[in-house]
Structure formats: C-alpha cells, structure tokens
C-alpha cells in the first residue's frame, strides 16, 4: 500500500478541525465517542465513510492521530481512528451493562460495528477495536491512539494483505447420525426381559443401540478430524487462534468441537480453502464450516499479547492463551 500522505495532509488537517468542533459540540450535547477501528490516516476512506451509518445510526468519521498537544501530526505513517459520536445515555457504563442483556440491542450494535469495520477493510488494512470501546471525547480517544502508535503501526503492517478465516468443526445434532434408523417411539420404552420373544421394546432397544454406536463412531472421528483440519489450515496461515467452542442457543443444534480462526495472506486464500475442503471430504459425517473473509478481529492484538494497559512497551511480554503464530 502506498502512503500518499503529503498531498492529503492539508485536507486532513482541515477535516480534523471540523471533527474536533463537532466532537466538542456533541460532548456538550451528551455524546460520547464510539471507536470502531484504527486505520492508516492516508487510507482513502472519506467518501466511503460519508455514505455509512454506524452504531446508533450515527455518522462515521475519521479522527486523526494527535496527542493532547498535537505531537502526533508530524509522524510518518500517521494513524486515525474510525469513530462515531453516540448518545451518552445509550453507551455509558450503566446503559451498556443494561443493553448488553438485550440480545436485539447487542445484535444491532454488533452488526453496525461489523459493517463499519468491513467497509473500512475493503479500502485498506484495518485494526478493529473491541466492540463497545467508548471514550469521553475525541481528545481522549486521539491521545490513546498516539500513546500506542508504534504498537498499532506494527500490527497494521503485519495484517496488511491478510484476512481472517474461521474454521469450525461440529458433530451433527443428536438424532442426525443414523438417519436410516427409525425414529424412537413416542411412548415410553418397554425393557425387553430375558427370554421374552422379540417385541416392540426389544426392537426399540436394538435401534437405540445401533444409533448410539453410530454416534460413537462419529464422535471418534472428531479428534483426528480436528487435528487434520488444524494442520492443513495452519499450513497456509500466518497466525491462528482458537476460540472457545460454541455452546449456546445461538449456535444451533450441532455440537461444535473446534472453533478456530486463521490469519491468511490474501495470496494463500484459495489454497487455504482448498486444503480445508480436502480434509472435510475425508470426514463426511462431520460438519466443517469455513467463514470469512473477516476483518482480522481475532488478530488485532499481536500474538504475544502486550499488556493492554501498557503503552508502547515491549510487545513480547508473555504469551496470550491459545494464540500462536503458525
């Protein structure tokens, strides 16, 4: 990616003045600053963002990097935050605690956040922020950005021309394994006593045993399948991370046993998908799902996980759990 910073400099400075005016206005009107992502300030985003509505239907803006005293403006490779001014009443701590219990609200905000990040990712490298990161005002947000400039710039460079892909492995829902087996009767089972002639009860038990054995056979494939998938996927990825298996009403009836994300160079995306598909073909009883491309949500922090509270200190401070470079 090129950095046509010089010719963009004046326009950005003008914009920043306008943004700061607006942020100040919004602050007095009971607004806070919702931050979606970090981007390179030179990324050609303005027209794209102008057409967007973000969280709470708010306009989406770029907030260029400044320290409280403007020390960031002269740096090479300047960064910017993608932000919206959102109502304080919906995003202060009490409201967020309440709203996060509301699945409809959560989904609305998550999808709005995702739409903004996706639009930005389409134009350049993006460093997504954790959902619902909110600052009192633009000055504080900009200062937080400047304080971690080096960390973010390094991470953006590492993520350039990469995308995240999800790979999930699931067991079929109970009852879906032996589709040839007749359905269990709705009345209660009659245990087949020894010596009694085969009857409906015994036949039922027989079917249940066959179903159980079929299911156990499928379960036994899960470990080898997960290992083969992980190996094949990691071969084409720069980094990978394992999410917790999905176990919730939202994740459907399948039993998820592997829920991983891979940071894949764009040039390897097809090879990555093909490798995963080849493994999936070896395990037809299991469900393999590839999602993506995603903006690199799962890889926004370096693999070795710097202290989130630290500034531009050493990044190699200690391993983050379940996170490795491939």
């Amino acid at each position, binding site marked *: 990616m090129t950095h046509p910073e010089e010719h963009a400099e004046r326009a950005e400075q003008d914009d920043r003045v306008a943004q700061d005016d607006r942020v100040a206005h919004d602050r007095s009107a009971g607004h806070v600053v919702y931050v979606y992502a970090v981007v390179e300030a030179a990324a050609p985003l303005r027209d794209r963002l102008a057409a967007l509505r973000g969280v709470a239907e708010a306009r989406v803006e770029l907030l260029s990097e400044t320290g409280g005293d403007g020390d960031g403006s002269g740096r090479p490779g300047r960064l910017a935050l993608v932000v919206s001014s959102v109502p304080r009443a919906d995003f202060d*701590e009490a409201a967020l605690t309440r709203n996060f219990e509301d699945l409809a609200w959560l989904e609305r905000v998550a999808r709005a956040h*995702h739409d903004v990040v996706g639009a930005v990712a389409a134009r350049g490298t993006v460093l997504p922020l954790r959902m619902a990161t909110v600052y009192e005002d633009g000055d504080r947000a900009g200062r937080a950005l400047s304080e971690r400039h080096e960390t973010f710039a390094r991470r953006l460079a590492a993520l350039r021309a990469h995308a995240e892909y999800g790979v999930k492995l699931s067991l079929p829902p109970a009852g879906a394994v032996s589709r040839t087996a007749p359905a269990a009767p709705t009345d209660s089972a009659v245990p087949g006593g020894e010596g009694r002639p085969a009857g409906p009860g015994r036949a039922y038990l027989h079917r249940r045993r066959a179903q159980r054995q079929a299911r156990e056979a499928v379960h036994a494939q899960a470990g080898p399948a997960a290992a083969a998938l992980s190996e094949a996927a990691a071969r084409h990825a720069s980094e990978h991370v394992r999410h*917790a298996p999905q176990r*919730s009403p939202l994740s459907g009836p399948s039993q998820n046993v592997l829920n991983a994300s891979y940071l894949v160079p764009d040039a390897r995306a097809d090879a990555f998908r093909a490798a995963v598909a080849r493994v999936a073909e070896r395990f037809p009883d299991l*469900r393999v799902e590839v999602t993506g491309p995603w903006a690199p949500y*799962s890889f926004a922090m370096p693999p070795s996980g710097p202290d989130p509270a630290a500034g531009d200190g050493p990044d190699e401070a200690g391993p983050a759990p379940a996170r490795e470079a491939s």
Partner: protein
Amino acid sequence: MSAPHAGRYDDRHDLPYDGGHPGGYEDRLPERQVALVDLLDRLLSGGVVLAGDLVLSVAGIDLVRVSLRALVVSVGDETAGQDSEGRPA
C-alpha cells in the same frame, strides 16, 4: 468454490459464507449476513482492547461478560463450556 459442508444440514443458525472470490477483501465481502454467534465470537473477544482514558470497554465489565456467557457465547474463555452437554437451556 463452495463450502465443503454445503447443504449437509439445514442449520440456519450457522449459514456458511460460500461466495468467495480470490483477491482483496473488497471483492470478497459476504453477501449473506454472517451468523451472529460467529460475529460475537470476534467482536467480544477479539479486537484491540484500548485501556487508559476511556470511559469503559466491554472487556472491563466482568458482569457483562458473565451474563453474556450464559446468554450468548463463551467469551474468550477456553475453559468454559467444555462440557459437551453444557448448552444453556
């Protein structure tokens, strides 16, 4: 290419993205809405966690994360939900 699992189960919670094209992100934006569960995996446990002067972020609210785990997903906790029958009612 089509996803390896295409059509195997009618599981509308986890619709795959299978309309990919090679090339940059712009060419590959999914046309189909992503599954909420996959999105929340990433938005609630991924992303940069900025700390310091901010009002708050999700990461700082233990209460939210605990109640979310029951409601939605096991948020970034590798040890939670390992019980194969642990799906909340």
